[in-house]
């Protein structure tokens, strides 16, 4: 099980490294989206602070969404996805490795840059820490639910938009708890409960997302 | 019986627009859906 996970993870990260552009573009998109809002709403500090959580979280959601179709589509095109389905390795391990690679190449960078954007929105330093923690915990949920969405829409016309249509409603809890953690810490409340709920959400999304992605891949390649 | 007469019934205590607005749209949705399903059946049956 772990051998398969390690093999697929190594391969996907190697491919991601050789195509740095993909991950970088997602990051730049995130920064641009977050920087556009003040141009629209005005840069009054108090207002920015209250908006920060929602803007950064929705930005992270959209950025993660951009990179989802690539998760399986490239492997479908060159035939390697088919090989993974008939291989000697359990499919959940393979899919888990692909999701982990997706998170490492998109989710993690988003989490690391989120505090920088937090500064742009005038967040105090302890809030930046909560923001980092929340996005670190929340982005794996996006990758897991996103993987299920990407597998369901594999090879379908208009897969990009459709994936968003399927995945975004399912990411509402992650958005609520993630952004809620930041809002709570800004208003002096403890962010603890939000972060633990986000962790619980991750615990639920792991089996559910993997099951759905594996089942959807088998259906897609039928 | 709650209503003195038809006029009072339609006025619905001043909130007629809202009450009848929601019932009218609901009835419209149901009628529309029933009609759409009937049409779909007609088209499916057209050999």
């Amino acid at each position, binding site marked *: 099980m772990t051998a398969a996970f390690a093999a697929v993870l190594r391969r996907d990260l190697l491919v991601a490294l050789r195509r740095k552009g993909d991950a970088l573009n997602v990051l730049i998109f995130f920064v641009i989206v977050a920087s556009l809002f003040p141009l629209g709403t005005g840069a009054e500090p108090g207002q920015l602070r209250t908006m920060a959580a929602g803007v950064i979280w929705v930005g992270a959601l959209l950025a993660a969404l951009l990179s989802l179709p690539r998760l399986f589509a490239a492997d479908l095109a060159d035939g390697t996805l088919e090989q993974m389905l008939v291989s000697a390795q359990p499919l959940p391990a393979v899919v888990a490795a692909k999701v982990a690679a997706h998170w490492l190449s998109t989710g993690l960078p988003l989490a690391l840059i989120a505090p920088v954007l937090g500064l742009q929105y005038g967040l105090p330093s302890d809030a930046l820490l909560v923001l980092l923690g929340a996005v670190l915990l929340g982005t794996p949920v996006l990758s897991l639910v996103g993987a299920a969405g990407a597998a369901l*829409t594999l090879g379908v016309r208009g897969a990009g938009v459709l994936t968003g249509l399927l995945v975004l409603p*399912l990411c509402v*809890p992650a958005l609520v708890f993630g952004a809620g953690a930041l*809002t709570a810490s800004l208003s002096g409340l403890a962010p603890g409960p939000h972060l633990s709920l986000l962790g619980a959400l991750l615990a639920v999304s792991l089996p559910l997302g993997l099951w759905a992605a594996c089942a959807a891949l088998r259906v897609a390649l039928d | 019986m709650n209503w003195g007469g038809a006029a009072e019934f339609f006025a619905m205590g001043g909130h007629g627009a809202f009450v009848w607005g929601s019932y009218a749209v*609901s009835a419209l949705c149901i009628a529309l859906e029933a009609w759409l*399903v009937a049409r779909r059946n007609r088209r*499916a049956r057209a050999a």
Partner: protein
Amino acid sequence: MFSNFFSFASPQAFYPVAGRMIPWFGWSAALLALAGLYIGFFVAPTDATQGESYRIIFIHVPAAWMSMFIYLVMALWAGLGLVLNTRLSGMMASALAPTGAMFTFVALWSGALWGKPTWGTYWVWDARLTSELILLFLYLGYMALKEAIEDPQRADRAGAILALVGVVNIPIIYFSVQWWNTLHQGASVSLTKAPSMAMTMLAGMLVMALAAWMYAIAVSLARVRAIILERERGRDMAWVRSMVNA
């Protein structure tokens, strides 16, 4: 072996059975609706605080219940279809989705019109209304996915997976929105505190809910018949013609 245990429920066998059931459900829906409206408007008293506008609950609450219930039934058919690999289950799930979406829209519309006289704004970011809106997105996503996939069998199975993921998420979404609502707004503005329920009010709502249920079954059976004809057209045109001429 087990997978063809349900072969008697093949689409072609089910088609006439559904045809015979539709009138029964259709008429009972109509009668129950009349009874429910009568109770709602002529028996139920005026509400002490909200006056007459509360009478919208006789359509709003049944629609909200049905929107949740239909998604559950849809997921049930979906799960059945995945496990037993029966074609009819996928068709039933497809037949239910539009009706569920319609009830969700009706619940949202009537909820908004109820909010205006009561809280002065059409859209109230109340926990139940907000999760109802997300439920509408789940329905639309389901229907969009099934529409986008050409091969009917793949569409059914992909839709089934989505419906099962969705049904697990509905309580989570509802809880998270509830949590979000109490965090931001406090519980003052909330539909969850239904007006003090006089017996007749509750009776009116239950009868209307039953009527909505009968209606949902009737219209879904009618839609599944159309789907069966569409699907069998390519595979067994002779049977389709026999049904049409019968």
